[in-house]
């Protein structure tokens, strides 16, 4: 089954009919956006791994029970589940950990381009780490819009509905997030190009 040719909806139907590979392709296709969104919200790799698993358990249960009604919008639907899981986690009293300079990420992070040499992989990994920290530095409302729009592929209209603000406010937050990121890069004199 080739990722590029099969729609999310066809993969869902195939999984519901009993073909596990449909789910595997969906995970392969969307795992980076989903996991990065969770990671940026909880700022802790272990907690993000747990929430990622719990999210997909809920996805599987919903699909298997025949209650999935979000045709064509699989990624935003999964992200909404993940987002709610993060909020639940927070409500259960598990504090969101602060990002530490010593945070380490899985070796898998740097294996995305197999033709890169070790030096390139290290640079890629460092850039990727710095960008995550830049996003962490943003005020909560701006970080939320960045995550929901850029990683979760939600439209500004959907973000506005989910967060209870107007579209203009969501757009304004995105605009300020980008301005703040550029300001931070300048202030910290970060070099983020290869």
């Amino acid at each position, binding site marked *: 089954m080739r990722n590029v040719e099969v729609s999310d909806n066809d993969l869902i139907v195939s999984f519901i009919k009993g073909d596990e590979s449909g*789910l595997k392709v969906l995970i392969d296709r969307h795992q980076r956006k989903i*996991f*990065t969104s969770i990671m940026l919200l909880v700022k802790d790799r272990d907690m993000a791994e747990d929430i990622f698993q719990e999210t997909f358990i809920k996805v599987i249960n919903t699909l298997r029970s025949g209650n999935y009604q979000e045709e064509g919008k699989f990624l935003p639907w999964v992200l909404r589940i993940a987002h709610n899981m993060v909020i639940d986690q927070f409500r259960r009293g598990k504090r969101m950990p602060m990002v530490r300079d010593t945070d380490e990420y899985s070796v898998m992070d740097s294996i995305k381009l197999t033709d890169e040499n070790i030096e390139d992989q290290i640079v890629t990994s460092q850039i*990727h780490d710095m960008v995550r920290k830049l*996003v962490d530095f943003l005020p909560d409302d701006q970080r939320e819009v960045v995550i929901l729009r850029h990683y979760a592929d939600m439209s500004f209209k959907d973000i506005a509905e989910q967060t209870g603000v107007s579209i203009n406010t969501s757009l304004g937050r995105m605009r300020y997030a*980008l301005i703040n*990121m550029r300001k931070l890069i300048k202030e910290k004199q970060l070099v983020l190009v290869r």
Partner: protein
Amino acid sequence: MDSNITNEKLILYIYNETDLLDSVLIQKEIDENPEVECEFENIKASLKLLDSALTRPSMESVNKIMRFAAQSLS
């Protein structure tokens, strides 16, 4: 920026959330107004940077999910 095209509109345009008429007007402004073009490129560069933060879950997490899926199907 000496233009009616705000940064918010440019952001909507980059994310393909403008209608056809707005898209044509915005692209025309980008082509003809160097200030708008510069802002457009800055926003695009910042958004591209965000892609560098993408990361994957561990294989262990994916395997656990697939084991759960197999059980749910059996």
